[in-house]
């Protein structure tokens, strides 16, 4: 311990000098050096040696500007820094610097003037290597910039939020799409763009999101451009580093079209199932009714298979019927052609009539009736006898509010069974006289004349359908 104040001051002065030197030398992470007023190095610590690569001997008496990169030297950065330090009492030095070996480091430091009274004696500079820190920050800024760029360039509406739905940022697309400004979207303001009926589900989804580790909801989002709501799929996840309690990033994707397609697909699938099962029910009914009218199992097999084939042929036409393009002629010719394999009908048959688009609902029943007429004509009528002729004609008759397609099936030159023979009114009769009337509201007439069968079938079609192919 020193006894007097003077001694103490003097001792302190000495100690302080030593202490300062000690600090400067041991501050190995800091480059600390001094220069004269012109920037010529007057001291150079170990940290400076380590950071920059020059020894004290190499630097003493040389311009400290050597640690500036050439482009900064050329632009006069060292002089500017000194002027700034003189004027402001300090100058911040944040820039790339040059090592002895030519490599660069990001230095962060201060330049301070050293004065004695009013006289500038030189400068002290302290610089720390912040290269890693700088690069990390730079990468972060780049990454952030990339994210923003991505967020601005993808069609999705991107947002940043807290894990409870409290929004902190929204991409410009969100604002453009919804018409909500960014300030109005922050917090829970974005909910205003969600359809009223979907808000509850939207908020509830945020309540379970932290537990689930992700947010997912499908909801309608207002589109300012046309004032409609569009279905969006909104998802969000917490940033990996920050966990569920930190920042989340999410997107809203327009799934309106997909949703519409899915709904249509579901309806189509349901229709398809309905049709398939209905068709099976028709097959079941045909089997049941064919069995009732068949004399033997062999008869059943032949008739049932023929009817199935007729049913199958018409299934091929039904898709076209949806577009209203199944012409009656197609149907008639398909049934007659189906006989072609084992019957020579060329020269026996005349087919004629205008182009008529049949209603989809009429096609199957009509095809089955025509099948029975054709089959019977081969078995008992015009197509089975040498002198027989068949004429199938049709026309469209327009009435005030609807049209009728009138088909005439006329067999001639047929030797009919003698009068008085009990006539079996078979499946064909049932289809023509009952099924077509029941199902299509058709007017039908089936006559067994002396020279052959005559059948007329009038099917109602909407007034604007008649005659259209």
């Amino acid at each position, binding site marked *: 311990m020193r006894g007097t104040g003077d001694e103490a001051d003097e001792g302190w002065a000495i100690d302080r000098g030593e202490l300062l030197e000690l600090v400067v030398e041991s501050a190995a992470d800091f480059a600390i050096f001094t220069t004269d007023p012109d920037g010529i190095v007057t001291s150079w610590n170990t940290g400076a040696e380590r950071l920059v690569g020059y020894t004290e001997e190499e630097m003493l008496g040389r311009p400290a500007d050597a640690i500036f990169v050439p482009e900064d030297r050329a632009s006069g950065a060292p002089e500017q820094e000194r002027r700034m330090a003189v004027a402001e009492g300090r100058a911040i030095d944040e820039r790339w610097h040059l090592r002895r070996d030519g490599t660069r480091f990001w230095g962060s430091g201060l330049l301070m003037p050293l004065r004695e009274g009013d006289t500038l004696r030189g400068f002290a500079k302290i610089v720390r290597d912040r290269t890693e820190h700088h690069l990390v920050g730079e990468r972060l800024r780049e990454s952030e910039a990339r994210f923003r760029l991505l967020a601005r360039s993808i069609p999705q509406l991107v947002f940043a939020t807290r894990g409870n739905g409290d929004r902190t940022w929204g991409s410009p697309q969100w604002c453009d799409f919804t018409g909500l400004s960014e300030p109005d979207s922050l917090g829970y303001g974005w909910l205003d763009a969600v359809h009223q009926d979907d808000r509850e589900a939207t908020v509830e989804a945020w309540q379970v999101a932290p537990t689930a580790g992700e947010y997912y909801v499908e909801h309608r989002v207002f589109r300012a451009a046309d004032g409609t709501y569009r279905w969006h799929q909104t998802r969000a996840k917490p940033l990996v580093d920050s966990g569920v309690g930190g920042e989340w990033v999410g997107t809203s994707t327009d799934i309106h079209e997909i949703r519409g397609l899915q709904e249509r697909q579901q309806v189509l699938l*349901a229709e398809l*199932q*309905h*049709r*398939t*099962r*209905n068709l*099976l*029910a*028709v*097959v*079941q*009914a*045909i089997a*049941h*009714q064919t069995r009732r009218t068949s004399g033997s199992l062999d008869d059943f097999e032949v008739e049932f298979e023929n009817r199935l084939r007729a049913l199958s042929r018409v299934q091929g036409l039904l898709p076209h019927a949806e577009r209203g393009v199944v012409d009656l002629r197609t149907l008639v010719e398909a049934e007659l052609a189906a006989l072609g394999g084992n019957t020579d009908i060329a020269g026996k048959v005349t087919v004629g009539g205008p182009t008529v688009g049949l209603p989809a*609902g009429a096609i199957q*029943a009509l095809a089955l009736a025509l099948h029975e007429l054709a089959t019977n004509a081969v078995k008992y009528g015009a197509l089975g006898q040498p002198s027989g002729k068949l004429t199938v004609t049709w026309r469209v008759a327009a009435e005030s509010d609807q049209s009728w397609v009138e088909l005439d099936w006329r067999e001639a030159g047929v030797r009919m069974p003698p009068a008085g023979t009990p006539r079996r009114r078979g499946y064909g009769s049932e*289809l023509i006289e*009952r*099924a*077509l009337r*029941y*199902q299509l509201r058709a007017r039908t007439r089936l006559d067994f004349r002396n020279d052959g069968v005559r059948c007329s079938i009038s099917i109602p079609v909407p007034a604007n359908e008649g005659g259209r192919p």
Partner: protein
Amino acid sequence: MTTRKSDGLQERRVLVVEDDYLIASSLAGTLETHGAEVIGPAASVQEALQLMAGEARLDAAVLDVNLAGDRVYRVADALLARDVPFAFATGYDAWIIPDVYAGVPRMEKPVDPEALIRTLAAEVARRA
């Protein structure tokens, strides 16, 4: 055709609503075979409602869902209002049918004749 006296549809008046003639006559045939009296069949909503209006007594009904593009639900509602038990015989999956008919049995086409009788008889017995 034999009539089975043991069936629960003996002398029951059953409305058949089905737009396809072949299926309708099959359903009607099955019901008649089991001793029921068939009302109809009706091929459209309008026809079914007209038939219902003219029938003081109906014990049960079997309804197709799609009648030439129209849905049968107005008939279903009229039956519910009259407390007449019925079942759907349809090619549609259950989800197509509105929830209000959740309690109505749905038979899938092609309908098993045994199931048709069993289902309708059970519905009739439940009201008895």
